[in-house]
């Protein structure tokens, strides 16, 4: 368990650095929050008073450790704009972002796995070439472009789904899902290409193994060999990529939430940036980065648990 301790230590160091870097970047943002709040007609005394109230007159490092101390107990400060506790604001919006990302991941996997299986069945065949071209095309389609095209197709032209807006689960499951279909598609259709390519490549490697030959020799039909014998041992890289892609997924979620006006963490962050709400930006960026680091850490661990060979190669050396 020596490697686990080392990895945990590394995790703590990275988390510390990430929050510190965020704090430094955010706090040298030009534009004095006191002037933003009080307006340009405020007297210098008023501004100085408000800065003192907000604690902005103290050295940056002091403020950082202050912030870190409260952050560790779950208090990320209060928004400069409306006094809302930042932790509460994030907690309120997190379910929307999580739902979006999970649905998008389901869309991506729902396309990637069958397509990879069908492609690997006959490498170089018609379907394989078709899917490779499709993946290449989708790879060149960023989510903000795809979102616009989907809105144009499904909301404007055919009027099937709402273009923007969010219905919470309390409005009923169907209303909620209806408002999430286009956002999830926008995010998922960008993701599936990478997953498909990785899984297809691993499937091709697995299919060369002796146990596949044995399964075939026993006379099992090809789809059974693919689904029951080849898929599971081929999915290790897929799991890693799922973890690594979380970063892209989070960035994508920020854009998609903005396009479809979903009240998620990404829109909270954008609003904070536009309003120069430092404490809100600091809180959300730190939260996102910390979540990202921890997820990557867990994926690494999961990978090691699933495949004992990795443990030795990756962590002992």
């Amino acid at each position: 368990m020596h490697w686990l301790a080392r990895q945990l230590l590394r995790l703590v160091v990275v988390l510390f650095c990430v929050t510190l870097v965020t704090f430094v970047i955010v706090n040298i943002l030009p534009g004095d929050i006191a002037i933003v709040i009080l307006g340009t007609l405020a007297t210098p005394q008023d501004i100085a008073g408000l800065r003192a109230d907000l604690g902005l007159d103290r050295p940056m490092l002091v403020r950082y450790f202050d912030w870190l101390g409260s952050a560790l107990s779950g208090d990320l400060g209060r928004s400069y704009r409306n006094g809302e506790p930042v932790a509460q604001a994030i907690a309120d919006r997190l379910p929307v972002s999580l739902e979006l990302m999970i649905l998008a991941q389901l869309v991506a996997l729902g396309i990637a796995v069958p397509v990879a299986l069908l492609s690997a069945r006959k490498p170089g065949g018609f379907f394989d070439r078709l899917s490779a071209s499709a993946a290449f095309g989708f790879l060149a389609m960023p989510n903000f472009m795809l979102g616009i095209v989907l809105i144009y197709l499904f909301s404007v032209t055919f009027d099937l789904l709402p273009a923007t807006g969010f219905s919470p689960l309390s409005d009923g499951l169907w209303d909620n899902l209806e408002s999430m279909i286009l956002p999830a598609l926008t995010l998922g259709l960008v993701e599936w290409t990478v997953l498909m390519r990785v899984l297809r490549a691993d499937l091709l490697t697995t299919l060369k193994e002796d146990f596949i030959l044995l399964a075939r020799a026993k006379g099992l039909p090809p789809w059974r060999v693919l689904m029951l014998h080849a898929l599971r041992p081929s999915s290790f890289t897929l799991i890693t990529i799922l973890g690594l892609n979380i970063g892209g997924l989070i960035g994508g979620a920020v854009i998609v939430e903005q396009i479809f006006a979903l009240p998620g963490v990404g829109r909270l962050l954008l609003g904070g940036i536009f309003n120069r709400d430092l404490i809100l930006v600091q809180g959300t960026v730190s939260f996102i980065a910390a979540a990202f680091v921890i997820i990557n850490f867990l994926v690494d661990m999961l990978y090691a648990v699933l495949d004992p060979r990795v443990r030795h190669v990756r962590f002992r050396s």
Partner: protein
Amino acid sequence: MSASAAKPVVAGAPVAGRKFRLRWSLVLPLGWLLLVVVLAITADWIGLPDPAAQELILRRKPPSAQFLLGTDNLGRDMLSRVIYGARTSLIVGICAPFLGFLIGGAIGMSAGYFRGKVDLLAVGFIDILLAFPALVLALTFTAYLGQSLFNVTLALGILSIPAAARVSRANTLAWANRDFVLAARTIGASNWRILTREILPNLLPPMFAFWLVAISVIIVAEGALSFLGLGIPAPQPSWGGMIADGREALDVAPHTALIPAAVMFITVLSLNFVGDIVRNMVDPRRSAL
């Protein structure tokens, strides 16, 4: 199945190998890229209307003889804006990765060559940059730096440091153990000379291939920033900004969003095609023998 499985199939590569396919998949993208580059460079001299000139009476006009690609929400000529937008995309797309590669390349080379503490420090630095989701870091940087063409380039340049550092570090690690480097050291060459004369030339081909890929990634990233309203400030045209503007009138004037989207798509697709072919040529593991 066994017959087709025996054929060497390269994972993820576009269908290549057949002569006429390879030719078309190279000529079309290269032709498009050439067109975009030439138009972006000569935009000032080919008699285009001012991309910022508004003509509110003529807003949201569909493509016609007078306005080949129509007009946008403020009655500005779309063709002119798309071409000037290409200039923006190209400046950011070419300069930002170049900047990142200059800094990241130097970091990666020193890390791979000196190893030990330098390596540990460099890898730590890269790990921290990578600990942020890329777009969130870009947003934070542009919010801090302020919106301008230069600052967007700088922010996206910083973002490309980790990738560049990784490529150059991995390649330096491989080359630094070669006999010719040992030979250079035996005749008393300095570290600087070994790095610049022996190792650097070998890093250029993989770095170049990677740079091509980075251009399309950065063009998309610039588009995303401008789309969110945190990239190139108005009225300077940018494809991402144009798509965002057009989004508001998707029901009455879809061309205002779909045209810049299509232009961006074709450009990124072309870059990916060319990048893939160059990468296949540079990477011996992926090239067909």
